[in-house]
């Protein structure tokens, strides 16, 4: 007899649990509670018969009853708060729906160019570089003369200069002018990076703007070589594009350096197969660099027999545009950059 009853209670318990789980309203839950635990329930019936049972059966059935009641009571209690209610219970649309959006604080944003500058600064700060500042209104001397770019140099006609007083006062055409200032004014050795605005006399289009950003770096110390330059830039490019990036270091001409070089990365879009982004070259030019030209060192009052140095530079805007999927440089700097969180 005891075996039959305990089996029956267990079956009832399973049935009840399933029904409780499937219930939608508090009323229905209450009905189930009555049905399985109430006065007319089988539970109450068995409980009433308990005292008439022989002692050995009494114990097993008693335990089964306790288990039955505990399990179902718990199931009912934990179901209650999840249910929408009948008239007797207040509907709470917030606790009821865990998909509701939260109330967000105002979300401010840094300009993407700032984000990229900060990221690159963090790399060079770690390697002991200072973030150095210089004027944007610059003299012919620091912007051109000390950089081995005399008046007749072809590079000067390519860099369409914006003049305030031709030829002496101008808007810097590159951040290299800050490097000649540092070399002229600071104690050696020197390890600096210079992020900043530069200017060219150009009509704006999708890829060129009269103002844009450059990022340059300079080391002047004893026994610096192309190997120090290459090691530094390889690590930098891996920091920027990931450790798997493939690089190419090649000879390139810049008047400020000798020997001069260019560092390319294999196109991260087509992996070298050739695409629109890399103009079907398979490679993207990332940095121009080289050993500081002895004439530049001399013009800044540095003895090239004692000191040597390397310099490197890059345009920042293209990197920013590729990173953030912006296809028009003007949008970065004309106030038409809007941050909207759509998530």
């Amino acid at each position, binding site marked *: 007899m005891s075996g039959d009853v305990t089996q029956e209670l267990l079956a009832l318990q399973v049935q009840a649990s399933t029904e409780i789980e499937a219930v939608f309203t508090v009323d229905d839950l209450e009905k189930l509670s009555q049905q399985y635990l109430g006065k007319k329930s089988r539970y109450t019936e068995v409980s009433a018969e308990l005292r008439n049972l022989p002692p050995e059966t009494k114990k097993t059935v008693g335990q089964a009853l306790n288990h039955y009641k505990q399990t179902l009571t718990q199931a009912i209690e934990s179901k209650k708060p999840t249910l929408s209610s009948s008239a007797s219970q207040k509907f709470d649309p917030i606790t009821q729906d865990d998909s509701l959006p939260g109330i967000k604080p105002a979300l401010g944003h840094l300009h993407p160019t700032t984000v990229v500058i900060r990221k690159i600064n963090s790399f060079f700060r770690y390697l002991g570089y200072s973030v150095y500042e210089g004027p944007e209104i610059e003299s012919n001397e620091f912007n051109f003369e000390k950089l081995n770019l005399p008046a007749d140099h072809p590079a000067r006609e390519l860099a369409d200069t914006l003049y305030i007083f031709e030829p002496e006062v101008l808007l810097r055409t590159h951040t290299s002018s800050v490097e000649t200032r540092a070399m002229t004014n600071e104690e050696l050795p020197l390890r600096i990076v210079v992020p900043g605005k530069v200017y060219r006399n150009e009509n704006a289009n999708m890829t060129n703007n009269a103002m844009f950003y450059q990022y340059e770096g300079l080391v002047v110390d004893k026994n610096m070589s192309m190997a120090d330059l290459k090691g530094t830039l390889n690590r930098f490019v891996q920091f920027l594009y990931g450790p798997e990036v493939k690089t190419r*270091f090649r000879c390139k001409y810049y008047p400020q350096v000798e020997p001069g070089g260019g560092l390319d990365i294999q196109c991260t879009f087509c992996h070298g197969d050739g695409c629109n982004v890399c103009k079907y070259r398979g490679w993207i030019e990332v940095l121009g660099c080289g050993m500081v030209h002895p004439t530049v060192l001399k013009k800044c009052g540095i003895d090239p027999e004692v000191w040597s140095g390397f310099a490197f530079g890059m345009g920042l805007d293209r990197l920013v545009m590729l990173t953030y999927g912006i296809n028009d440089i003007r949008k970065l700097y004309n106030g038409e950059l809007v941050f909207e969180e759509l998530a």
Partner: protein
Amino acid sequence: MKVPLTWLQEYVSLPTSTLDLTDRLTAIGHMQDHLPVEVAGTSVLDLEVRQNRADCLSIIGLAREVAAATIQELRLPVVSETLSLGQASDSLVTIAPQTECYRFHAVRFDNVQIAPSPDWLVQRLQAYGIKTINNIVDITNFVMVEVGEPLHAFDRAQLQGSLVVRQAKVGESFTMLGDKTIQLDPADIVVADDRGPVAMGGMIGGLSSGVSDQTTSIILEAATYNQASIRRSSLRHSLRTEASLRHEKFLHTELTEVALRRAVGLLQELAGAEVVEQTDCLIQPEPKTVLSMRLARLQSLSGIHFSLDQATAILNRLGFELGAQSATELEVTVPYFRTDVVQEEDIIEEVLRIHGYDQIPDRLPTTAVPADLTSPNYALEEEISDVLVGFGFDEQITEPLTKEEFSVLEPVKLQNSLNSEKTMLRTSLKPGLVAALEYQKKFRKTEVLLFEVGRIYYRENDTFQEKNKVGVLVSGPIISILKVKGYLEGLCLRLGFSPLTGIAKLEMLDSVTGFFELDLATLLDQKNKTFQLHQNALRTSVPQVVFEDFSLKAPHEVKVGEVMAAVTALSPLIYRVELGEYPRELSATEKSIFLKVQYHATEGQITTNQVQTARQSILEMVAEKYKTFLR
């Protein structure tokens, strides 16, 4: 530079794969600009032009590079040793004094037979991209591309008198090949006959004296000029020709003879031309450049342990002559075609690039980290930006080149801006942010919070000033001047100091838009006087405070902030003074001030007596100083 492979192959054996060739060329400094194309039955490479390498605007120059980089033999075209440029004469041409021309070498030919060029010549020029005209013109173009020296042939019958190379005269005009007439500038160089200019030196020939089917006698010339002069003429007239492209680089005076000898050979062969006489005006011959290269310097700059033999082998392949040599130093004579090599470092680059930049080891400087020269502005700008972003602001970077309707400061103006909307540098961050706001409104945002960290520019006593500023613009339906001020105060407190009156001028641009601009130097100065964290913001124990409200009446002109500051400063027993509500007008002369004061004892619990005393001192002070009394 377009490089037809069949042409290049004349002088050097090429790698079987074009990709290997372009990779090698790129590595040594001649980057492929566009993918190769098929023209006239050959692959044509497109290489970036190097500013300093006049020789690489010639097929032979590039063949020499390929030969050096791939260890192949360079096969130069054979010109007979006995070939003559004709009887020396001074009748063909003279160079006028003060002309930017270093050498002008002219050769006269008679009995010229004009004909179409042979197929091989047509194919070469087509592949390069020059139209074929007739054998004479084609030969001049062929030699130009082959050796890099532009040549020009005049129809002698169309010339009057002898030629003179001179600067153009004021008011002179010139009709070039293609029938376009331009006004010359005295800075332009011309080749003229008795009637006037028949060519623009280094640029283009004239319409009237060009070689035609009727031509029987020609004057062929090769020259070198001041490259800067040619470059400026080219820019001045927006005229870029194959000739100007080469003359605007540094061509050695010896190159004219190399080109003429090659052309004479071809003219004799293909046009049956007879050399008659030559006039060679050599004003300023280029001296030979002899440089020494120290092995130690090569090793220390390159980071590679080269041997002298390695360096010598590379330099030989590039056409440098090696002179006296010690164990530590090489004497190097620079060939005429390498006008870019002028000092030791240039030689070092030659050795290093042919050896291969990919062979350079990869290491980091091991010297001690130098002093930190980071501008204090940098950290402050970052901090300000972070605080404002934390308040919910979006950063803008707007272009300082602008056109302001009205400037508070004397603006810095540009002399030569191409754009009439960008004639000066901004004197305030406001217009840029206002323009950004207008655009943001299109996105129907309820509230727009913008800031920019950047410079303003102005003139002061004949100096040019640049000041780092932060501009803050707030706009939205519930923006009041007090909310704008609240952002200013919040920013100052976050930077670590109490907001000062007058640190910035608050402006309401309209009823819902406020702006202020802060000077970074001022902020930096304030910040340096205080700790990172605002002192008043830090508590280490719960204060035992007693609250008391003061409902006061004050004359209209009394400044509430000053009253609050004065009360706070009155006694150490006063812990905090807050404004219970904003003042209301009570009468024509009086307004309400509702202050909530908290007292505390510096030690232990504050006593009733102490509160009484403090309260009394507050009332006495405001009565005396501000004519302010309990209501």
